[in-house]
């Protein structure tokens, strides 16, 4: 049994949530909520085993906005003997460049990302646990649905270091592989909505 993973789950989640909320509050207070500040969530993340996610964006100029986002997934599905889970706690800070106007039309983004993850049972019986950090870059489009609502679409690329351990199964604590490697992977597939203040 990988008790260390499971038993520490609640403590880690609570800790990350606290960190994110504190960072978000600090971010919002520092930047100050103004017109075109946004609160977004990504529908694709929600569909990824119910990953809770939110992102706060604050415009700093006509073309630039700064976004602080976090995702959190404490859930586990399936039988207790062979659960399926994609537990994550992730914080990202990025800046977006809007060629036309903040929260309107096309944008490019780039920023930093930190993620602690534990997933398994999805494509195989193995599970992986570790963390990753690095840089993200990508782009997207914000469609103005209403005065207050945007539909956002986008995709990006993650470049960073992953430090993880591979376990033979989702319930056992037998590590098969422990490694640290540089990874480049697609990331941030976004199809979500933004609420504009």
């Amino acid at each position: 049994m990988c008790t260390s993973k499971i038993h520490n789950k609640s403590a880690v989640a609570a800790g990350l949530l606290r960190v994110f909320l504190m960072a978000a509050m600090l971010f919002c207070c520092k930047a100050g909520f103004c017109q075109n500040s946004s609160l977004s969530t990504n529908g694709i993340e929600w569909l990824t085993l119910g990953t809770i996610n939110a992102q706060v964006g604050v415009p700093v100029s006509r073309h630039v906005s700064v976004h602080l986002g976090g995702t959190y997934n404490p859930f586990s599905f399936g039988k207790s003997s062979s659960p399926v889970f994609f537990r994550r706690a992730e914080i990202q800070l990025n800046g977006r460049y809007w060629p036309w106007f903040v929260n309107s039309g096309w944008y490019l983004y780039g920023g930093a990302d930190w993620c602690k993850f534990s997933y398994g049972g999805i494509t195989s019986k193995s599970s992986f646990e570790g963390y990753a950090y690095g840089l993200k870059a990508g782009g997207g489009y914000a469609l103005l649905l209403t005065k207050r609502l945007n539909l956002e679409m986008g995709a990006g690329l993650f470049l960073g270091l992953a430090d993880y351990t591979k376990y033979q199964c989702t319930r056992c604590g037998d590590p098969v592989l422990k490694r640290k490697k540089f990874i480049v992977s697609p990331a941030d597939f976004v199809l979500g909505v933004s609420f504009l203040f």
Partner: protein
Amino acid sequence: MRRGGVVSMWILLVVLWGCSQSRRFVRIIGEDKVSILQTSEIERNPYGKISVENRGDVRRGGVMAADSAGENEQMILSAVVEDDEGSLVAKGKLSPVVVTANHKRVSVRGGKIRLGFDVHIPATFCSEEWQVRLTPKLFWERDSMELERVMATGELYRSSQMRGYEKNRKYLASIIPDSVDFVKAFTYLFLLENFSARNFKDSLGEFGVTEDEAVEYYIKHYLVNLNNRRKARLEEVFRRCVKDPIDTSGIRLDTIIRGGEGDIIYRYSQDVRAVDGMKKLRLTFSGGVFAYGRRLYDFPKSDTLAYYVSSFSRFLDESPLYLTARVERDVVVSTIAFIEFKAGSWIVDESLGENNREIERIKANFDSLQLNKEFVTDSVDIVSSCSPEGSYATNSRLSKKRAESVKEYFASYLNRGQKLFKTDNIPENWELLRRYILEDENIQFKQQLLEVLKTDDPDVREERLSKCKDYGVLSIRF
């Protein structure tokens, strides 16, 4: 060719009469009808064999369009059959378009000549796919005038034209007109409205963005460009869609033929304004057969219809019965007035000496001339002169200025402009002085004075005169 009586023309007739009967197709049809046919196409193909580009329907036995062999000329054939060798051979006799003038002599009525003729388009030309165009042209002496055209348009031909117009109309409908609201038509209005609602509280938006910038960003540039391209291609598309526009100008008749089973006879009547020299009018016709805007055949140069114009005015004796002559009489009214001037001055001073009386006298003369209905004052000559006192040169300049001064004075009075007046001057009026010497009884030594007057140089003459005994009397009187 025989001329006379009622003349008609066979505008078009192409006959293939087997293999050996190609001759000059100049035929006399009855007493009043003359046909002239262009036979060149046939003569170039003595065997009567031609390759046929079938644009008609052989089976219906109607008129067809064909290209003559080796030549790129259009021909009209009545029917085509296949011979033993498999060649297509034109057969049959084609009825011509006939134009008949019902009256050879026309008369002038109210300054106009009414020409009349019948245009007979036979059923063979009344194809639904064709249009027969006929343009009459009138000649007299060296002038000519094109009359309004006659057209016989097949129903399918017209349908084809209308389809072209319909295609063009659809194209026009695809163009967004300039009159529409540009923002509504050419922008992503939905996005623009949301953007404006979000960022504009007044004319200046968040982060200094302006309304113009917002509109510019949300313009559908592809649509603007597409629309501009469509507008630029208007003429080209019209030409492509409407290969044969419906002509509505200069047309007397444009009839639509349905079925093409009957002849068309149109009685053409045209009033022509009679002008000098219109004794004989000649009428010719040109035109052709068209299929969907393409000229199938040009009618050969037609014979001429001749009209003889009869007019009562010819019988008129144009020699003049009476003449109105204008007789001019020239009358000259002359008067001498003595207007005094101060020494060396040329200003007319009414208060000086007897000037007022003299001026009034001249004015009275002018008034009487103005009131005279019999004569017209056409010029006033003013001649001024000075007394011999002073140098001749000075008197010459002074007399000129005084003449001009008097001219201006009376021109102002008559109010007829200065062009009426002409001026001249006599620097020193010795002749007048001589007459005074002769007439004045107070002068005792007249002979001495008259001798002095014979001196040539006026200044020497004046000096010598001043030394005479009667000079004192003379200077007072003159």
